[in-house]
């Protein structure tokens, strides 16, 4: 028979408001639904049963379910930045002006070219891709992969940025109840009465779960529970909030839809709740299972519960003439609801031999035929159900008759929603009587105290009849994994398990024949349960089929792993406010705004932004860096060094402590002096470096690299708290308390003396590697005579709030001296000209100070320091370790950073052997030619030798080994 109007029933529909019509667009057509409709019900009310094409065979598909488990009715929703693929029609509320686009079809849902795959389906069995796209090998990269990538995925990804805001929030509760049905609300009332703080989460916009549809008094019972809960101040109730995952220690994530229905209203669209729950009650209900009969995927075949939901909730007729097929009593409710709504119920086909519970009796009392011991051999119809062919369940599908119908409401029993229970370790057991996996209350997820912190209740716990005295007498379910029992291959190859991914009974059987025994492997081989619905309706049926094929009991096969999220969570909600200007903390120095206004080209250093260089008008970065270097070498420049780590170390044992932290002696450093120090980890590898300052008799200030500040402070506290807890030392990270400015260049002293008043900065008063305290530009300052550029240099530290003031003052009074701000790249080049190492360039976690010619900074007198023992290991003292040298490019081109110096011969992998690599490489504007530093085997002993550096292009650059100090070897410029 054909699918005919009226599709909207004249009455009924507890969720809709017939007074408000809502227009929406579907593939360019304008349709109308009603206030309260889901997208699915709105489409059905327009006679649109076909809602999608399956992934592999492009078969026409209609809605199977009415809730979160729906595998077929997925649409692209919205436009532009608000376009979202794979939106579930059954759980999306209709709003005015909504625009839906069908997916996985071309040119249209009705006429889809891809449907040719359906005719080819005998050639596309499970594992088709794995078997086919192996040979010839080169085809994989150039032919197969591009084709597969283009055809992969149902929906299209949005191409524009999401204009909406999303947020996260934290909550804490004694108890979180997930599921606002009769079991969850009942549990919440009980806990709340005991004084616990209770949060109740419900994924749907309405409370009540199945009770209002399934029990005549269901809504009243729910209303009473809601009234109780709303009267209690210790209860928080959230609708539209889907618990996505449960993690260790009662950490529960839930997504609250705030403005999905109206993103324009200017509030966050969704909110991700991060809840610490003392205890979680899983009251997530159960999902109905399809039955596996031939052509069970034709539009119009749906779950029995979905058929009655469409009628009872939305007043929509899924069809005019309904056949119910079942292995349990519950599905008879659909016959009753449909009949009472005025629809024609042609028959109930029951696979069981006897059906005499209260519900079958009530159906028979309405003169509806109940055919026991019967089965559907096949559904007729292509784009829509037209009829069913009947047979005996016990037989092999020999037709015993046929019934014209336009809807088949099927029920293969129910599976508890055990996802949350399973996410963090709750175990399941197989309930043979009910043919379901349900939570094993003996083995719940455990909390920090080793006790269960999750309880499953109601249908989620396998108690399908959890509505107490609302329930009626029901007979047992009979497991039916194949209908009819002895169906031949021809029928089995048309029985769909996973609708979205087109996995059939025959595919799982094929996997078993090919040797797959693990359910996890079978899942991946066949793609069963791997679609966007994550197999909510298909998993149990699939593993039952696998068990039969392997001739083992179902619990021996087991389930696949349940992983969060329960239903898809959009990435925007996971990112929430971590976007745009709050993507991540951006650390700014006190002079940040000045740099910004003076052409700074930024470089990220950890979370800091540092000026890489300052581009003048019309200048590129390379030119700017060259100009800055020349300015410093010839005049004076300023560098914002505020980001350098500054750690104060104080106490009677501070000197002893620093002698352990650094490879050289710090306890002997006189007050008023500075010393460069190296810090190694326990394995002897160089970890950080910097200048240590002796502030007072018992106080030192340790400078660290920019990136090392937090880590080194943590490293110090680790040793103090865990190893040397009885040493009297306190540390504090004062990095951000100070703004620090390096004033470098031959005219640095001249500049500073214009601002230093009585503070004597002369060579005698403040020699190299000393420091003093005084006022610069009337700002209290510490001045360190240290140099990373090789020039006369003063690093000036002032309280951070006055850093900008000092910087501006320096530039004001230094204008006639050509004062130039310089960035990190000029700093890098200048230090390389001087042969100074840089942590992270010359070091990579495998380098020891001895590799870098820094043996002079390792105290021979000390009995110990962190890393000392490791540095005496044979591999560390091996003379063939690569060591630091300078490189001079023979043809005047810069040898790329990271380039390898090749050696004779090849290694076991057939690759050229190497004998060194470039660690830093620049063009030196000071010298007018390229300079590089490299680590080379026996390097320092090979001065003058030429190494070869092949480039990916095939070209070979040559570099001569030279001293790493390229500029001012005597260090005469340090004193100006």
């Amino acid at each position, binding site marked *: 028979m054909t699918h005919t109007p009226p599709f909207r029933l004249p009455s009924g529909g507890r969720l809709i408001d017939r007074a408000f019509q809502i227009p929406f667009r579907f593939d360019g057509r304008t349709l109308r639904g009603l206030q309260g409709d889901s997208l699915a019900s709105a489409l059905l009310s327009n006679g649109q049963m076909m809602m999608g094409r399956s992934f592999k065979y492009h078969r026409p598909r209609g809605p199977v379910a009415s809730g979160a488990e729906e595998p077929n009715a997925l649409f692209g929703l919205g436009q532009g930045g608000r376009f979202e693929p794979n939106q579930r029609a059954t759980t999306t509320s209709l709003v005015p002006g909504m625009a839906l686009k069908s997916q996985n079809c071309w040119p249209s849902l009705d006429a889809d070219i891809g449907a040719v795959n359906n005719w080819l389906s005998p050639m596309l069995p499970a594992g088709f891709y794995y078997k086919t796209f192996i040979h010839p090998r080169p085809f994989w990269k150039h032919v197969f992969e591009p084709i597969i990538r283009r055809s992969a995925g149902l929906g299209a990804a949005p191409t524009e940025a999401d204009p909406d*805001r999303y*947020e*996260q*929030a*934290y*909550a*804490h509760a004694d108890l979180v109840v997930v599921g606002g049905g009769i079991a969850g609300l009942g549990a919440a009332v009980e806990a709340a009465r005991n004084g616990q703080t209770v949060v109740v989460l419900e994924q749907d916009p309405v409370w009540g779960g199945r009770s209002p549809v399934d029990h005549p008094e269901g809504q009243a019972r729910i209303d009473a529970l809601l009234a109780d809960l709303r009267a209690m101040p210790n209860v*928080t*109730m*959230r*609708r539209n909030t889907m618990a996505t995952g449960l993690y260790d220690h009662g950490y529960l994530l839930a997504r609250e839809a*705030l403005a999905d229905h109206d993103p324009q*209203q*200017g*509030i*966050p669209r969704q909110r991700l709740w*991060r809840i*610490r729950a003392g205890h979680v009650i899983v009251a997530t209900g159960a999902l109905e299972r399809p039955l596996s009969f031939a052509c069970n995927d034709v539009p119009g075949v749906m779950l029995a519960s979905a058929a009655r939901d469409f009628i009872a909730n939305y007043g929509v007729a899924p069809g005019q003439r309904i056949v119910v097929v079942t292995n349990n009593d519950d599905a008879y409710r659909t016959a009753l609801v449909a009949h009472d709504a005025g629809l024609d119920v042609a028959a109930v086909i029951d696979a069981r031999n006897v059906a005499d519970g209260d519900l079958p009796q009530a159906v028979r009392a309405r003169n509806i035929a109940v055919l026991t011991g019967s089965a559907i051999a096949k559904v007729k119809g292509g784009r829509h159900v037209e009829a069913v062919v009947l047979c005996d369940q016990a037989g092999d599908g020999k037709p015993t008759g046929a019934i014209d119908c336009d809807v088949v409401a099927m029920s293969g029993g129910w599976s508890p929603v055990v996802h949350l229970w399973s996410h963090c370790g709750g175990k399941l057991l197989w309930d043979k009587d009910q043919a379901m996996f349900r939570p094993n209350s003996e083995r719940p997820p455990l909390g920090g105290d080793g006790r269960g912190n999750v309880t499953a209740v109601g249908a989620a716990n396998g108690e399908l009849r959890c509505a107490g005295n609302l329930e009626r007498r029901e007979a047992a379910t009979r497991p039916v994994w194949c209908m009819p029992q002895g169906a031949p291959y021809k029928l089995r190859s048309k029985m769909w398990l996973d609708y979205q991914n087109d996995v059939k009974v025959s595919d799982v059987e094929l996997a078993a024949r090919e040797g797959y025994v693990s359910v996890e492997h079978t899942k991946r081989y066949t793609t069963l349960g791997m679609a966007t619905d994550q197999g909510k309706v298909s998993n149990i049926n699939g593993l039952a089929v696998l068990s039969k094929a392997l001739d083992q009991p179902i619990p021996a096969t087991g389930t696949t792993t349940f992983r969060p999220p329960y239903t898809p969570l959009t990435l925007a909600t996971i990112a929430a*406010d*971590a976007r745009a*200007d*709050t993507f*991540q*903390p*951006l*650390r*700014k*120095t*006190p002079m940040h705004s000045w740099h910004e206004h003076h052409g700074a080209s930024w470089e990220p250093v950890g*979370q*800091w932004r540092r000026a890489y260089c300052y581009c003048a008008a019309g200048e590129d970065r390379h030119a700017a860096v060259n100009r800055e270097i020349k300015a410093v070498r010839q005049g004076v420049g300023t560098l914002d060094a505020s980001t350098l780590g500054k750690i*104060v170390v*104080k*106490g*009677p044992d501070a000197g002893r402590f620093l002698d352990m932290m650094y490879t050289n002696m710090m306890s002997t450093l006189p007050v008023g002096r500075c010393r460069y120090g190296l810090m190694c980890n326990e394995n002897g590898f160089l970890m950080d470096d910097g200048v240590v300052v002796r502030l007072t008799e018992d106080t030192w200030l340790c400078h660290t690299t920019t990136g090392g500040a937090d880590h080194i402070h943590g490293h110090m506290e680790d040793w103090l708290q865990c190893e040397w807890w009885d040493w*009297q030392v*306190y*540390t*504090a990270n*004062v*990095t*951000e*308390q*100070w703004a620090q400015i390096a004033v470098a260049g031959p005219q640095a002293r001249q500049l500073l003396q214009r601002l230093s008043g009585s503070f004597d900065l002369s060579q005698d008063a403040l020699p190299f590697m000393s420091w003093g305290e005084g006022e610069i530009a009337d700002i209290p300052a510490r001045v360190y005579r240290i140099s990373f550029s090789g020039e006369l240099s003063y690093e000036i530290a002032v*309280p*951070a*709030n006055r850093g900008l003031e000092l910087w501006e003052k320096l530039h004001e009074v230094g204008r006639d001296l050509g004062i130039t701000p310089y960035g990190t790249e000029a700093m890098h080049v200048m230090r390389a000209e001087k042969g100074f190492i840089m942590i992270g360039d010359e070091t990579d976690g495998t380098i020891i100070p001895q590799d870098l010619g820094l043996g002079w900074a390792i105290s021979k007198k000390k009995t110990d320091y962190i890393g000392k023992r490791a540095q005496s290991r044979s591999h560390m003292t091996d003379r063939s370790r690569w060591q630091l040298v300078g490189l001079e490019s023979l043809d005047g081109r810069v040898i790329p950073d990271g380039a390898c110096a090749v050696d004779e011969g090849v290694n076991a992998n057939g690759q050229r052997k190497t004998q060194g690599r470039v660690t830093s490489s620049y063009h030196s504007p000071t010298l007018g030619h390229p300079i590089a530093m490299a680590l080379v085997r026996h390097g320092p002993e090979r001065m003058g030798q030429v190494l070869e550096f092949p480039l990916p292009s095939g070209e070979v650059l040559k570099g001569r080994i030279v001293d790493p100090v390229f500029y001012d070897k005597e260090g005469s410029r340090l004193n100006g």
Partner: protein
Amino acid sequence: MAEALATIRRVEGMGMITLRGALEQIGPVVSDVTGIALPECRKITGAGDRQLGWMSPDELLCVMPVADLPAILAALQDGLTDRHALVLDMSDARVIYDIIGAHAEDVLAKLSPADLGAVGSDDLRRSRAAQTAAAFWRIESGFRVIGFRSTADYLGALLHNAAMPGSQLAPR
């Protein structure tokens, strides 16, 4: 347009001193100098702009108007010379925001995983706001939040975003 959940105000002119030392040893001196009782574990004592916060078993935070800082700093250093202690002016390393308004707690609950329901009027929490460290305590009609100077803009933007009009956490 609805109003923001709370007013976010950057507080200027506050000084902070970090103290490290065995609390039983430095406590009496600190109390003497500041006139504020030593806070218990995770508490903050004092009132208004002069407060003393417990930061760790061997660390205190002393908050005061910046004008009072030099005298207090000197007095603390003097008073603690004979004891193993570290006294540092950290005023410039920090930023302070006040979150004021009926839904101030909602703003903070979007950023910090701390259980705000368990934060009493004399509690101090060292926690975080999204991806940056933050400590906070209750003030009249809201919270005072301290963070790092370098991420002041980030923290301010977070707080303003979290206070977006119409985004209160109460179920709707």
